[in-house]
């Protein structure tokens, strides 16, 4: 018991002793006033509840300056409670009683919401991580998700696009999807999105756009619209017990966001304003001007098939840019990449007004962010308003209402946000003149002048009623409605779009009605202290979910001019009966998506604990939805969890270095609705004619499967929580085994069935691993102004293994073809997804090193069968010939390799240093063991094998430009241990295709260590001007965000690659930003 505590007791007890008798006799009312401060920093604490523990009633709360004043019968106990602090109880006596509250075992007494139920962390059986408000401040990002990276062990976030308003990939405890769509750099894995719950309302994580961007849409999800300043906590639910009550949507984990609530008798105005600058990223190394010309001409003259070929190439019209070097038109060194980027100045502003007491509190949060992208003509503006009103009109009735409205405006320029951005396609020869008044460059014009405005309007409202109709029994009803309108208006100028204008319009409307109604029962055998006896909580509820989604597209091409953006309607080009005009099948006019989805669930849960020492949670949920196969409407999601807080055993009391300690063990099952009406019921289509009349026939593409089940997962979790040495060291360890099964795969059918394919449940994936979070306070100064150091390190090891494929297959090859030929392998027992490519063993130093077929007397060659210029020679790549036929062939010699879709280890490190009024936070994240195919490098090198061209199509298609060869260790005669094959000898190289993209030469380790954020802040304290202007808090800060990434990877950034680990040169690079901000509270 420390000294200050004693003093307080003296202060309280002394008057009691003096007038004890009087008190007992009269029970007179006394007025107690005082100030509540933080024991460590001596800062006043507003909003501390003053409580009567006997009657369990609130007496008041402290004001903005931490003062309180209550009237109460003398001698009554008064308890001061505040979230995150140890409660303190004193006896009432008139006069001034100043209280200093100490930080409590924060991580345990904190209330979290799991399964729509508020619990203290010490009674949780599941694996739940909580991120507080202070961990996501000071960095103005366009999407809150960016800030969660590296903060929760097991939550893997890769910010693989820097496009403002877009978001990266997210997965909790590994990937659980197998479906790969798209091709080449535009191949994407189906999303592993967790369920998002904002203020107890389940919302669609993506806001209707899919990661693969193959769907049209404004692509602004809820996480981009919600301002970080308004977030109180973010909880990440990782195991199946924690997520089981979220039923059919919780299989990928759950992220719960709780916004801030008003809790101050005097209104508080919080203003947070910052200015930030976005800086363009590192450009890709390039040779321009004379160096480029030298490379190209040297390659053509010295390494062509013969001199005549070289002469013909140089004499061709297309080679004029090379040969006519004295022509000023071709005498340039244009930095194409630089033309696309810009440095932008942006602002972020947030105002929050809040106030009230537990009986009635309110909050209004207004936010505006201007965030212009580093690529010209891209950016994101967002406006949001969040209003919340909580009422307790009667002791047994609580009502909460909230209205959230937001507008996100996104300019996508010429790209998709994830692909087609930046200089990728326009990154042509530096010898060509840059854009000027007389010279237009189509791709660049596109960037400058094309319009692509995307607006998302989101309105979300909820009403939550909670009524205790008889003691301990409560009825709870929550109804929410979430509505989105997405619009996209795009106009591509003719010059930038193959000489035809394109006017594209998209309107999407989505809404979701969610209603949850239930009854719950709460029993505590010792009402005042949960640690005193039996505690039971039981609930029963039903949940109804109705979603609609309608999307309409109009696509009008070949308009009369760049200045006439119309007519907006159905395109005559695509008029029915004019198939000639739609040879490429690009007609996407019409209603691309229209669906209605119903889900109905019943759930029951029972939690019991004895003295909060032994805890058990049981839950059961039954989910049905309209998309499941008609013969399998309902799925069952049971769960069970135990927790033993062993530090509460009396025999542990001798170990006073142990603050808390517990073991957790859970099991649960979850599901994920993946069935659609089409794959469970089939679809119809119009046939051109049957007996000369148009007919409606079953769509032969897919055979309906009425037995289709939702995809499911079960998970075991074992966890240990330890708090040591008076919260100087906290350790949270979890280990888990999760199996996702029933994954739907296509089964292609023999054509005699008349159908192309059927979808079946059958694949399964196991993810298992370990998560460790260590929070240490190595330097704790007793002086609040002294030096303090807090360090948080977390790491997660997750291994994903494909355990089953339908039909007991061991292997599935996902064919890719041009332009990259980088196939995927799904192999049972291997990483969930692997690349299926050639294995590069090295470079042949001399022709004599090339293996010789002893039977046929010729060297190892590329491709089977006869072909010229395919024998390997010095400077060529030595690929593994697995079957020993002395011919490299796609059919025999590819191997499953790498871990492209998920890293083995992820984590983060955060350091906070406090000294006097200064605070410094350095926060980093890391990834270990992930494979990246460096297509940006490989593609450019491959294209350099066409030295006379400006652009190639087909394999590795794109513009030809010259990499900075001083950075490339490529084979030259006499070189030893070169990493890359010979480069200039383009004619020979094209035979065996040395620079093919589908080889392990370009599969690099994408491990990285990234400095996410460095923030230095200064708290103004006790300045005269603050009092004069009524400021309670004033804080300034500078933040450097996304400033450095350290990696063995040879490209500029191992994070801005696709979710399948392809470094797409057209991806949107991530920008560094620098912020100066001010936050104040009145």
């Amino acid at each position: 018991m420390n000294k200050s505590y004693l003093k307080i007791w003296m202060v309280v007890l002394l008057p009691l002793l003096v007038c004890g008798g009087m008190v007992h006799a009269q029970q007179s009312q006394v007025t107690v006033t005082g100030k509540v401060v933080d024991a460590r920093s001596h800062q006043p604490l507003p909003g501390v509840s003053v409580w009567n523990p006997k009657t369990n009633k609130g007496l008041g709360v402290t004001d903005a300056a931490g003062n309180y004043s209550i009237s109460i019968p003398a001698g009554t106990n008064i308890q001061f409670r505040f979230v995150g602090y140890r409660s303190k109880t004193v006896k009432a006596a008139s006069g001034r009683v100043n209280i200093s509250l100490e930080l409590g075992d924060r991580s345990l007494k904190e209330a979290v919401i799991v399964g729509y139920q508020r619990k203290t962390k010490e009674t949780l059986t599941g694996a739940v991580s909580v991120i507080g408000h202070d961990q996501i401040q000071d960095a103005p990002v366009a999407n809150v998700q960016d800030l969660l990276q590296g903060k929760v062990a097991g939550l893997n976030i890769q910010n693989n696009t820097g496009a403002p308003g877009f978001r990266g990939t997210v997965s909790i405890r590994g990937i659980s999807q197998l479906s790969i769509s798209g091709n080449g750099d535009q191949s994407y894995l189906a999303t592993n999105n967790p369920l998002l719950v904002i203020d107890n309302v389940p919302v669609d994580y993506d806001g209707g756009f899919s990661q693969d961007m193959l769907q049209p849409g404004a692509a602004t999800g809820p996480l981009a619209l919600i301002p970080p300043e308004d977030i109180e906590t973010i909880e990440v639910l990782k195991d199946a017990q924690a997520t089981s009550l979220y039923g059919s949507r919780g299989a990928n984990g759950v992220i719960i966001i709780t916004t801030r609530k008003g809790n101050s008798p005097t209104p508080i105005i919080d203003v947070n304003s910052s200015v930030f600058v976005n800086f363009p990223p590192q450009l890709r190394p390039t040779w321009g001007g004379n160096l480029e010309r030298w490379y190209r001409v040297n390659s053509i003259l010295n390494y062509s098939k013969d001199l005549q070929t070289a002469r013909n190439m140089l004499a061709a019209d297309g080679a004029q840019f090379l040969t006519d070097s004295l022509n000023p038109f071709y005498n340039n060194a244009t930095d194409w990449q630089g033309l696309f980027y810009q440095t932008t100045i942006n602002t972020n502003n947030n105002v929050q007004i809040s106030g009230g007491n537990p009986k009635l509190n309110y909050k209004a949060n207004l936010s505006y962010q201007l965030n212009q992208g580093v690529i010209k003509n891209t950016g994101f503006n967002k406006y949001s308003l969040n209003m919340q009103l909580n009422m307790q009109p009667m002791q047994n009735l609580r009502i909460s209402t909230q209205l959230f409205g937001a507008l996100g405006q996104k300019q996508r320029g010429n790209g998709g946000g994830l692909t087609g951005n930046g200089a990728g396609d326009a990154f042509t020869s530096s010898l060509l003149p840059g854009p000027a008044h007389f010279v237009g460059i189509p791709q660049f014009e596109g960037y400058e002048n094309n319009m692509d405005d995307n607006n998302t309007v989101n309105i979300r409202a909820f009403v939550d009623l909670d009524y205790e109709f008889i003691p301990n029994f409560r009825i709870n009803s929550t109804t929410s409605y979430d509505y989105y309108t997405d619009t996209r208006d795009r106009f591509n100028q003719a010059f930038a779009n193959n000489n035809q204008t394109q006017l594209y319009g998209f309107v999407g409307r989505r809404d979701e009605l969610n209603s949850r109604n239930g009854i719950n029962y709460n029993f505590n055998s010792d009402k005042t202290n949960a640690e005193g006896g039996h505690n039971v909580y039981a609930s029963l509820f039903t949940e109804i979910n109705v979603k609609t989604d309608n999307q309409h597209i109009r696509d009008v091409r070949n308009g009369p001019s760049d200045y006439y953006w119309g007519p907006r309607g159905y395109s005559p080009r695509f008029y029915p009966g004019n198939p000639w005009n739609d040879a490429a099948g690009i007609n996407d006019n019409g209603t691309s998506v229209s669906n209605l989805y119903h889900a109905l669930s019943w759930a029951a849960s029972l939690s019991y604990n004895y003295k909060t020492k032994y805890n058990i949670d049981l839950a059961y949920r039954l989910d049905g939805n309209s998309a499941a196969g008609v013969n399998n409407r309902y799925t069952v999601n049971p769960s069970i969890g135990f927790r033993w807080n062993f530090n509460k055993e009396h025999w542990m009391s001798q170990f006073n270095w142990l603050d808390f300690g517990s073991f957790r063990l859970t099991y649960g099952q979850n599901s994920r609705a993946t069935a659609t009406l089409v794959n469970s019921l089939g679809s119809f289509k119009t046939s051109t004619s049957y007996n000369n009349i148009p007919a409606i026939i079953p769509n032969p593409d897919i055979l309906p499967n009425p037995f289709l089940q939702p995809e499911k997962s079960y998970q075991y979790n074992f966890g240990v929580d330890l708090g040591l040495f008076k919260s100087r060291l906290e350790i949270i360890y979890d280990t888990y085994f999760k199996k996702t099964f029933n994954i739907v795969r296509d089964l292609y059918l023999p054509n005699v069935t008349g159908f192309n394919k059927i979808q079946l449940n059958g694949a399964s994936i196991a993810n298992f691993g370990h998560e460790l979070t260590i929070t240490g306070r190595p330097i704790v100064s007793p002086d609040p102004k002294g030096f303090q150091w807090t360090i948080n390190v977390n790491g997660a090891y997750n291994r994903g293994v494909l355990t089953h494929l339908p039909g007991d297959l061991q292997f599935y090859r996902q064919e890719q073809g041009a332009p990259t030929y980088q196939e995927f392998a799904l192999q049972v027992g291997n990483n969930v997804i692997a690349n299926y490519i050639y294995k590069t063993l090295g470079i042949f130093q001399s022709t004599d090193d090339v293996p010789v077929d002893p039977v046929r007397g010729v060297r190892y060659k590329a491709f089977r069968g006869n072909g010229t210029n395919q024998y390997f020679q010095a400077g060529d790549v030595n690929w593994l010939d697995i079957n020993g036929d002395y011919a490299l062939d796609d059919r025999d010699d590819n191997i499953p390799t790498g871990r492209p879709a998920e890293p083995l280890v992820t984590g983060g490190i955060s350091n906070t240093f406090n000294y006097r009024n200064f605070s410094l936070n350095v926060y980093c994240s890391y990834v270990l063991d992930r494979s990246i195919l460096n297509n940006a490098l490989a593609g450019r090198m491959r294209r350099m094998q066409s030295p006379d061209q400006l652009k190639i199509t087909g394999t590795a298609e794109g513009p030809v430009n010259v990499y900075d060869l001083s950075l490339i260790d490529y084979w030259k005669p006499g070189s030893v241990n070169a990493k890359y094959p010979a480069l200039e000898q383009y004619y020979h190289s094209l035979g065996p295709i040395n620079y093919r993209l589908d080889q392990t030469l370009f599969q690099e380790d994408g491990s990285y260590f990234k400095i996410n954020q460095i923030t230095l802040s200064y708290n103004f304290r006790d300045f005269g001007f603050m009092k004069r202007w009524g400021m309670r808090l004033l804080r300034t800060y500078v933040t450097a965000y996304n400033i450095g990434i350290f990696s063995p990877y040879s490209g500029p950034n191992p994070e801005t690659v696709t979710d399948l680990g392809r470094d797409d040169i057209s991806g949107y690079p991530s920008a560094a930003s620098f912020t100066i901000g001010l936050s104040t509270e009145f």
Partner: protein
Amino acid sequence: MMHKPGRVVAGVSVVLLLGLLSTGCYDRFVPDKKDYFSANANYSVTSFTAILGRTNVFINIFNADYSTQPLDFTIENVRHEDSSAAPELLQQVDAREWKTFYQGNEKTLAEVEAKRYTEKKPIFEIRPHSGELFFWNTDSSKVKPGTYYFDVRVKNHGGEKVFHNLVLSVRRPHPYDPYEFDDITGERKEIKDGGVTHPTSYGMVDELSRPLPADSVYISFRKTGTGKTNTVSFIFLDQDSVPISLSHFNTTKWDSLKYHSNMADADVYFGFNRKMNADSTKVTFDITNPFPVLADVSTNWDVAHIDFSYNRISFNHRVDAGLGFSFSIYEPGNWDVIFQFHKNPKFDDD
């Protein structure tokens, strides 16, 4: 109580150790990486025709359908047409193999021979991981021409499959190609099927200046002996079987005769040690066996080619003319290749 961190660290490490151990446990719950053996793996060719007297190579014949490589192949149950075992196909013979690759720019026969070595191999052999089949050079004293059957067992750790009743058809030797006699019957082929061999020709005229078609030139091969060195000689006879002097072929670059070897992907010298006899009616080259050296292993993709060209003035035009012939020789020995003109060509200027 800060003096017990040791125990804490120990406790924590025990827990972490347990965790790490449990990783091993987890591995037991997931299947091991297994080989995949596709049910659709298949031989795309099931009937193989081998010709005695040369090495026969059957490559690019197995479609593994993405089964996990490497696969193991074994030949089983080699048998005659009447199902009796045919162990003679598996007896060891001298097989000529390559130490290093044939470049085509070798200057002497010895240089080519130095790249080859002899090894004992079973006559009928399968390449262990690719399933390619080889029928080594042998003669009918060891293997009788006829039809044989065999099975191939293919396996990896994921499964195995036996391909039954693959057919090996062994045929009579061709001493040279193009060969005028039928593989099976040994009878001369029909004229239309190549019973007579003709060269290609261009620009040639007869003595009346009429175009001289290639099929008026008959080519025959004649083995004159078996020397230490294998040779090929060319002799041209006119319609009266009188030798024609090779000096008539005045634009033939006798010292740098080359042809393109498809297999070696190079232009290679036509033989070595060119010798012309005194009256220039016969030219002789030392050759490898087979000739060209990759003729058999390239499955006839590699053939030697020689052009005998000349030009003459035809009514004030200089006209190029000549004969070309592509062939290969499998039987060692001294061979004459005789071009018999059935109409005399005109070499003189008009």
